[in-house]
């Protein structure tokens, strides 16, 4: 049997269920200081001075660290990690604010104390002399000429401008039978993992090695940024991501607080821990926030798409830590699962005095799916066609795979959909949802004054982005099978997944494989957990490395047993002679041999150690796809929306663990429900954040979450040896689109058309009021 494809129970669960997980804040080092951060209360201000004397006078406060107190290497902005020639002003945040602050929550100083209560007392007493400046808040206003400059001295707030596309879009529009235009405002709030950011830095006085425990999605990136800024050698810095309480994109970034905490540990020669609270998370952990899409679609008389064009404005926030990645993904995902003969999208990124925006689960794709699916629904409505039929007429047919869209993706490679059957996937979702029978139900309840609607959201997702991820598989003389993978886990169950992959290659159960993840000391190079890339990159590396270990074990056993390699088989932790299972060697015995005997030469052709390290490097992204169907009921008097059913059909290639994939999809959908109906990070005109707790920023709860009914397709990709595609974000991508379509459908008697998410009650009531 194969472990890949089985519903293997997670190795992570028992410890977490007993309260024995080890999250960063659970680690206590002797002499450790707790940090609290002085943060700007202004969206934009000059700093004229800082007086920390009152804070330093508090018993238990050890130090207050400001920009001026940092060692010189730390008195610089963080590097721009993903440059792009379109960026006009590559403005990056300092480790601690130098002489100005550009968003509410920007870190200005660290107070270090015996405990967090005392450190916060200190924060209260640090006096910062601010000279407030006008702030750029709403990105639409900030983009206009004459708006307050988000960065004083700049002529405007345009951070970057670029265009993507292919074909002759204007010509397509010139000959179209119909052209429809929409302006869509989309807000995506923030990631909000249940564990806020956490970090602990300690320099070992004996070895000089700096260890940073951080709940990061990219331990190697954090190490590399630190080394790049300070000139430290890679092997003097180790970043460990222990148990991490969710990430969803927000913990990919190397934040100023990471570097500041490390600097504080060096300055005090003591371990320093910083645990962010939720209010700080609302203020200063990156979000995804706002986009404004102005898009047009050109179709022929049958609803076949001839072209799509438009413009996209993106709220970048105050800094560009990951350049223009999010809007770039948005713009290159817009064509979606459809044949769009010509496409052109102009993108404008706008600086505002708000915390930076970087990818959150879905990473700009939910907005693209929303824009495209809104246009599809519009075409259906205008042409009097069923929304499912319009999509059917435009899907990339299965026989055109691989399908080159004509765009270049963020990794520089061409956008090529490698595999999948999009029309069949839609049909699977429709069948599961009982789409054909819904109209009768809709009509019968409408007679009772109830408004039900059904909506479709289809998507593709470029997953498994390169360049690589590494894995080492090793067998010890004691017979333990170890796998070390550089990428970190935020709850996905990576250790279980890698154990399944390795177990299959080495003929053991997954319980025999001990997996370590998230330690930059375990694997030399690494990129990180984002872009639904770990199964593709690290999974393939583990598969390849375990395969190499298998080959080597057979080769050594062939030497030890004096049998031909083709006469040997591997199973149950042993290599044995086919047909004579009693004659064999355990993997431990083989490893002992491979580890050598003092003074004896290695036999010819046998290298040291029963282990292998592999770095799988995919040539380009592999495209997952799916189709969601939502059924909602709208209360036309209160503007309330209730999701009655939610059906997904999706294809992420080979499924490694159905249980975990279903968990990823369900969690992703509910994140998308939050985006569709609830989550709104509001700011006022001065750039002051208003929703800084979970009482006002509404995450979906169990009570408004439906059962997510799932159907799977498996079209293995040819682009990696496992045939896998990413599964972590697909659930989120089309959810808002499907729900908006369902609301429109429910409110068809009113002619309501959703052009904004989240759909709040007052927005919906206003639409209904205008139409009735």
């Amino acid at each position: 049997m194969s472990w890949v494809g089985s519903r293997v129970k997670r190795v992570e669960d028992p410890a977490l269920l007993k309260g024995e997980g080890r999250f960063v804040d659970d680690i206590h080092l002797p002499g450790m200081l707790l940090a609290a951060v002085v943060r700007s209360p202004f969206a934009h201000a000059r700093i004229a001075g800082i007086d920390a004397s009152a804070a330093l006078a508090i018993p238990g406060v050890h130090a207050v660290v400001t920009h001026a107190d940092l060692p010189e290497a730390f008195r610089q902005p963080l590097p721009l990690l993903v440059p792009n020639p379109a960026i006009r002003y590559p403005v990056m945040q300092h480790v601690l604010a130098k002489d100005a602050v550009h968003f509410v929550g920007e870190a200005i100083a660290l107070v270090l104390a015996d405990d967090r209560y005392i450190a916060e007392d200190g924060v209260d007493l640090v006096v910062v002399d601010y000279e407030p400046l006008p702030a750029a808040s709403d990105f639409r206003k900030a983009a206009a000429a004459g708006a307050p400059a988000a960065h004083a001295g700049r002529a405007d707030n345009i951070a970057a401008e670029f265009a993507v596309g292919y074909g002759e879009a204007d010509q397509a529009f010139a000959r179209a039978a119909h052209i429809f235009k929409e302006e869509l405002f989309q807000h995506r709030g923030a990631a909000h993992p249940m564990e806020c950011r956490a970090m602990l830095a300690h320099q070992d006085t004996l070895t000089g090695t700096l260890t940073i425990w951080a709940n990061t999605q990219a331990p190697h990136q954090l190490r590399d940024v630190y080394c790049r800024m300070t000139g430290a050698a890679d092997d003097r810095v180790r970043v460990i991501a222990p148990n991490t309480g969710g990430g969803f994109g927000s913990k990919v970034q190397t934040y100023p607080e990471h570097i500041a905490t490390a600097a504080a540990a060096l300055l005090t020669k003591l371990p320093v821990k910083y645990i962010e609270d939720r209010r700080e998370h609302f203020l200063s952990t990156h979000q995804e926030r706002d986009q404004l899409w102005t898009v047009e679609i050109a179709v022929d008389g049958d609803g076949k798409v001839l072209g799509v064009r438009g413009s996209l404005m993106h709220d970048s926030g105050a800094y560009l830590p990951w350049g223009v990645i999010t809007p770039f993904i948005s713009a290159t995902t817009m064509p979606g699962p459809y044949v769009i003969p010509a496409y052109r999208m102009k993108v404008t990124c706008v600086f505002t005095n708000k915390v930076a925006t970087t990818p959150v689960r879905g990473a700009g794709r939910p907005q693209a799916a929303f824009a495209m699916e809104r246009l599809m629904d519009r075409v259906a409505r205008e042409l009097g066609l069923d929304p499912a039929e319009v999509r059917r007429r435009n899907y990339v047919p299965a026989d055109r795979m691989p399908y080159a869209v004509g765009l270049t993706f963020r990794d520089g490679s061409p956008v090529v959909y490698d595999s999948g059957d999009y029309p069949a996937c839609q049909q699977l979702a429709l069948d599961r949802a009982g789409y054909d029978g819904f109209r009768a139900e809709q009509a019968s309840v409408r007679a009772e004054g109830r408004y039900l609607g059904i909506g479709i959201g289809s998507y593709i997702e470029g997953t498994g982005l390169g360049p690589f991820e590494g894995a080492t598989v090793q067998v010890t003389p004691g017979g333990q099978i170890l796998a070390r993978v550089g990428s970190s886990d935020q709850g996905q169950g990576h250790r279980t997944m890698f154990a399944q992959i390795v177990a299959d290659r080495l003929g053991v159960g997954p319980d025999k494989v001990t997996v370590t993840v998230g330690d930059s000391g375990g694997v030399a190079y690494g990129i990180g957990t984002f872009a639904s890339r770990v199964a593709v990159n690290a999974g393939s590396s583990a598969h390849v490395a375990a395969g190499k270990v298998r080959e080597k074990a057979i080769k050594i056993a062939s030497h030890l047993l004096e049998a031909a390699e083709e006469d040997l088989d591997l199973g149950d932790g042993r290599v044995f002679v086919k047909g004579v299972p009693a004659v064999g060697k355990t993997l431990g015995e083989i490893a002992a041999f491979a580890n050598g005997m003092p003074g004896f030469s290695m036999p010819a052709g046998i290298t040291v150690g029963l282990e292998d390290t592999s770095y799988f490097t995919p040539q380009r992204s592999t495209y997952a796809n799916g189709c969601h169907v939502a059924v909602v009921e709208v209360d036309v008097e209160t503007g309330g929306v209730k999701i009655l059913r939610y059906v997904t059909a999706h294809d992420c290639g080979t499924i490694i663990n159905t249980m975990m994939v279903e968990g990823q999809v369900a969690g992703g959908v509910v994140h998308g429900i939050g985006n569709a109906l609830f989550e709104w990070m509001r700011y006022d005109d001065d750039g002051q954040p208003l929703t800084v707790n979970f009482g006002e920023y509404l995450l979906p709860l169990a009570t408004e979450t439906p059962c997510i009914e799932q159907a799977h397709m498996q079209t293995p990709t040819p682009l990696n040896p496992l045939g896998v595609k990413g599964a972590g974000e697909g659930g989120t991508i089309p959810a808002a689109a499907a729900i908006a379509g369902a609301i429109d459908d429910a409110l068809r008697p009113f002619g309501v058309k959703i052009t904004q998410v989240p759909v709040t009650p007052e927005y919906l009531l206003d639409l209904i009021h205008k139409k009735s």
Partner: protein
Amino acid sequence: MHPFTLDRPRDLAAALALRAQAGRNDAPAEYIAGGTDMVQLLQEYVRQPERLVSLAGLLDNRIEIGPQGLRLGVAATMAEVAADPAVVEQFPLISEALLNSASPQVRNQATMGGNLLQRTRCPYFRDVGYAACNKRAPGSGCAAIGGENRWHAVLGTSDDCIATNPSDLAVALVALDAAVEIRGAGGSRSLPLVDFHRLPAATPHIETVLEPGEVIAAITVPASSAARRSHYLKVRDRASFEFAVVSAAVALEMDGARIRQARIALGGVGTKPWRVPRVEAALAGASLEPQSLRQAAALAAENAHGRGHNDFKIELMQRAIVRAVEIAGARA
């Protein structure tokens, strides 16, 4: 959390003698019971009292029902009252309002008294990042009036404050003509709950009539046949654990198919729990026919004043009244 000292007096008299005061940010000492709202305010530096006086174990937590009506000891928790069989049977409005509030865990901790005294959810009050909040820092201004005010009140507002009272319980109790027994060093007094909270006017930092050294000891609700035929309708963005965008508590006395007497209070729209006597008067003798309900409900909006983002509440609260009356009227 700002440092403070804590007193655990051995009896109520000793606690009252310490003259702490609830609901005022300028009070140097404050009482704490369940603490679910207080600890939040302390955590965020919204309240920085020098001294807290614990009421744990000092106040009555009994739930008593007699021919006169219901008496709730102020230390009874939300969960205890919501699940009390006699409350569920005879005063379902109270149970519904409680079960529509907070979460099961918070209801286990939070008391009746603390619920009536919880502070507004106005984000400008709840976040010390804003300098301007007359409720938190008297005289500093009101950031909500010209700011983001979708959460704010449309009734009973002043030029100094438009914050809503967040209690669902208080809305239900006001509809049921509840009264509060107030205990002070000098003795007890009783007054209708509708007069307990103050309008903000020019002093939004003074939220109730409590004087230093006074606490609520009990809540009394008179028996009435209307209490059973009732409904608490809460409109909010998500299905649970959120403060009301708009709520309506309705209790009806019916005379066949007609309303003899209606008692209606609104939440989420007023600076205090808001009774609507003009609507009640218009409904007296009316049928449950939608047109007459809508006409009556429109009277709730007579003095309503939106500030932009919250304009939608004016129409929404009328619809909430109509629907809650319909639902209550349909009950046996």
